[in-house]
């Protein structure tokens, strides 16, 4: 089947919406845009309350359909020096309502709701969270039980949850995704995505190659200079294999170098340019295009999982398709379905189009094979309705770059017990070590400082509860509030309770000492972080919150559109050193 463009030119240009969103539609297309417009985002706001509002700004501008702000605060004068979505007249009013009003002005197509309530009161009956597609929770939460309640509910109901801190020059956010969060449309870099299957050509491709390259030496200069490079490589591969005892294509770097030299000899140099562009392209593509099929780690992980190998009636579509592709991969000795895209190359228009059609036809036949496996599985499992063709097609096209993120619950710092790091100790220790080797301090201490902050708040809340009859109410719930009798700043102590003591690791088997925060240098780093956080006294800096709001919004967009690859799962930004760190916590 040959694809033809017979679409008549439209009589009018793009719609108003296409115009308005033009620059972003070039990134996530209409499907991504629809996902945003169908979403309802919940912001559980507290503290100075800027970072969450800034994140919302970056979500409303691109058209996230609906947002809700829960915030118990009333607008005070200091809000006016840090929050852009308030005005003088807002003073004394509900901050949820005021910020909602000014945010909504940004995009008339978006609807916003404001609820003047504390997070704790709002989630009293957690099923209220069912109304939302995604939750942004601003830390520190006052009470670890509330955080735990939200985290657990979100986990059980597969609602993505972002937990965010922004204090002074530092910020942090953790993303709690559902247990399984597959991304098919990862938008890999086009420069790395070519699978042209030159080492496994199929008959149609070889026939075309013979047609174009069969009489190479008798071709006119014009013809010779326009043979598409991949046909040249196929031809020289045959020549190479014929002269080798093992009949195998060039396998290592040295052989490929030799092969490049052979290709180069075929180029005509007695022309005005002193060479041929198509031959140059052929040489440049040898290292990249003559590799035996292999699969990415991301896809390997998908193939290896139980859900892929033994899908059930209730499995997500993703697993049914993954299962069929896995079978294809096994049957075809390591090949993945052909993506079917062809890079541009020096060629005559008609040859290029013919080649493009050969690739497209092969891709379609691979998809057909996979679809038929899927239909069999569906029948065996008695699944209905059948998976849509376009979903199968999208998976086949991007199979190599599919990512499966396994959501992990947030780590919750409680005043009553230390966090058990057993399962992550090794990875996090590794992170500290690697950073040291690279000569850049790890930003992990900032994450720990934020956990310490949470823990401090939890302690204060316990204290508060035990002193409900106290005539002196606790004024401030921020660190550095040293005036609270009996509550010394607990940050350094926290390190001792949360550091990487690893009871599960057998020290005898792994004699390498674990890097810990109780080494003198690590202690200094950590103390400096704590001091900078204390300096903030709970304040947000607008720039850091705006920046973090931008990062959070990027990640939210990726999660809502299921396009590009969201961060897995914790990010820290250091506004002093101007860099970010990412950890899998």
């Amino acid at each position, binding site marked *: 089947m040959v694809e033809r463009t017979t679409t008549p030119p439209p009589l009018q240009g793009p719609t108003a919406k296409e115009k308005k969103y033009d*620059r972003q539609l070039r990134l996530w297309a209409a499907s991504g845009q629809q996902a945003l417009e169908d979403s309802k985002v919940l912001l559980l706001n507290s503290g100075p309350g800027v970072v969450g509002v800034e994140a919302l700004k970056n979500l409303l501008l691109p058209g996230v359909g609906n947002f809700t702000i829960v915030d118990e605060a009333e607008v005070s004068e*200091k809000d006016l020096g840090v929050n852009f979505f308030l*005005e003088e007249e807002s003073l004394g009013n509900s901050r949820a309502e005021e910020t909602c009003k000014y945010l909504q002005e940004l995009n008339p197509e978006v609807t916003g709701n404001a609820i003047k309530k504390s997070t704790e009161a709002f989630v009293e009956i957690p099923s209220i969270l069912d109304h939302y597609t995604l939750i942004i929770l601003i830390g520190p939460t006052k009470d670890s039980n509330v955080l735990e309640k939200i985290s657990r509910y979100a986990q059980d109901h597969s609602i993505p949850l972002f937990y965010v801190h922004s204090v002074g020059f530092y910020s942090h956010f953790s993303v709690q995704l559902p247990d399984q969060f597959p991304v098919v449309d990862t938008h890999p870099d086009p420069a790395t995505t070519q699978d042209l299957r030159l080492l496994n050509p199929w008959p149609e491709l070889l026939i075309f190659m013979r047609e174009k390259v069969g009489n190479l030496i008798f071709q006119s200069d014009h013809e010779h200079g326009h043979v598409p490079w991949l046909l040249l490589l196929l031809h020289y591969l045959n020549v190479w294999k014929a002269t080798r005892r093992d009949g195998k294509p060039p396998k290592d770097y040295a052989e490929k170098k030799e092969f490049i030299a052979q290709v180069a000899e075929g180029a005509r140099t007695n022309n005005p340019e002193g060479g041929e562009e198509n031959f140059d392209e052929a040489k440049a593509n040898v290292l990249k295009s003559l590799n035996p099929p292999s699969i990415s780690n991301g896809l390997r992980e998908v193939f290896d999982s139980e859900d892929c190998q033994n899908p059930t009636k209730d499995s997500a579509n993703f697993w049914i398709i993954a299962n069929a592709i896995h079978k294809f991969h096994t049957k075809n000795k390591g090949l993945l379905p052909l993506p079917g895209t062809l890079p541009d190359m020096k060629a005559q*228009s008609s040859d*290029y189009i013919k080649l493009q059609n050969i690739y497209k036809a092969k891709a379609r036949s691979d998809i057909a094979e996979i679809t038929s496996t899927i239909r069999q599985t569906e029948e065996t499992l008695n699944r209905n309705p059948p998976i849509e063709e376009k979903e199968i097609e999208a998976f086949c096209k991007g199979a190599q770059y599919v990512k499966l993120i396994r959501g992990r619950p947030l780590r919750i710092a409680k005043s009553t017990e230390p966090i058990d790091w057993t399962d992550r100790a090794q990875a996090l220790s590794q992170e500290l070590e690697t950073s040291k080797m690279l000569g850049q301090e790890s930003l992990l201490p900032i994450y720990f400082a934020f956990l310490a902050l949470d823990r401090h708040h939890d302690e204060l809340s316990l204290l508060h509860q035990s002193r409900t009859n106290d005539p002196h109410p606790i004024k401030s719930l921020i660190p550095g509030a040293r005036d609270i009798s009996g509550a010394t700043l607990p940050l350094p102590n926290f390190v001792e309770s949360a550091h990487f003591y690893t009871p599960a690791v057998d020290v005898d088997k792994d004699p390498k000492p674990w890097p810990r925060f109780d080494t003198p240098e690590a202690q200094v780093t950590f103390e400096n972080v704590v001091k900078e956080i204390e300096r903030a006294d709970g304040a947000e800096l607008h720039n850091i919150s705006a*920046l973090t709001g931008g990062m959070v*919004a990027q990640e939210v967009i990726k999660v809502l559109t299921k396009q590009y690859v969201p961060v897995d799962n914790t990010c820290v930004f250091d506004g*002093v050193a*101007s860099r970010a760190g990412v950890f899998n916590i």
Partner: protein
Amino acid sequence: MVIMANGVEPSRKRWTYLDNFLNKPGPTTDPNWVPGEVTINGLETSKVLVIGAGGLGCEILKNLALSGFKDIHEADTIDVSNLNRQFLFREADVGKSKAECAAAFVEKRVKGVKITPYNGKIQDKDEDYYLQFQMIVCGLDSIEARRWINATLVGMVDMENPESLKPLIDGGTEGFKGQARVILPSMSSCIECQLDLHAPRAAVPLCTLATIPRQPAHCIEWAHIIAWEEHRKGEVLDTDDPEHITWLYQKASARAQEFNIPGVTYSMTQGVVKNIIPAIASTNAIIAASCCNEAFKIATGCNPWLNNYIQYSGDEGIFTYTFEMEQKEDCPVCGNLARNLTVDPNMTLQDFIDSLGDRAEAQLKKPTLRSEEKSLYSQFPASLREQTAPNLSKKLSELVVNGEEIAVSDPAFAISFKYKLIFSS
């Protein structure tokens, strides 16, 4: 340490949060830093110039106003307008001056800040204008304007007068990626030193467009470059005019049909013709805030600032790379060495000029060339152009000797490159 009497003055109450950083040092603050009034005054009297009122520029204005700057000037340039990223405008504002709308909006939201808009080309202002600022923050789409301001600021540096050194903070985005950099003109790597990082996409050869199109973009470029000239000669193509884009789209579609090339769309036509870079609000927010965070640290000294480049990439997870970009000794703007350039002595001057346009570090549009002895080719004035035009068809070996230095300048960028021509054997 300056502690204000009786807590905080009523007028500064709204800056309570900010003052936590201005009234006390942190662990990484320079030990000689003086907190309190001096620092606060310094911040409030700093005059900052923001260039660009697009998506980045709007964010920058907002962020600077909420960082405690009080005297902000902003210059708009010709920039692609797009409401979804430019939150300082309402639909009712379309058609009004962008710089003025943005200024009025921020002044209303952040009381006490004065924003002075300037409508016009930044190139029309002279050194005296730029000398009044403490620093310049740039959020521009256009590489030309960036290169111009960079060269101007480097040229202004007078070693005798430390006030003449104006830090330049520059941000740029594309899709989920972006970068922010701090440039201390003449002291650290400048925009020109880093030009090859931002090389333009290679242009499609004209013969591909004319005879062997293969991609939808080739058909669009053909309509843009060849068909327009042929059918609407003399008419200026306005890429914001839907009639013009529709015309190009229809021409491109017809050509695509002729060659069986699938995929030409209206949106793609617009993208190719206007060279549209995908942009989203969140990336602008990240990069603008990063620039303003540095501006705030530079203006107050409350923490060390970026030395000197941060790259942000958000399409696959999050990745940042913060590093010190090296100054180039042969930078045509801030360096003083000639760059070696190997050339074929049999090449004509015209071919040589054409090849300069393709070089990543040069990207020149209308170069003028001088050897140590004489003018080789000059675009302006017309008399000199006529006089030097015959050189264009001469071989390089007829015009210069092996190893001779030549100066290449382009009025569009206020730059002059020095090349030492080495003849290939």
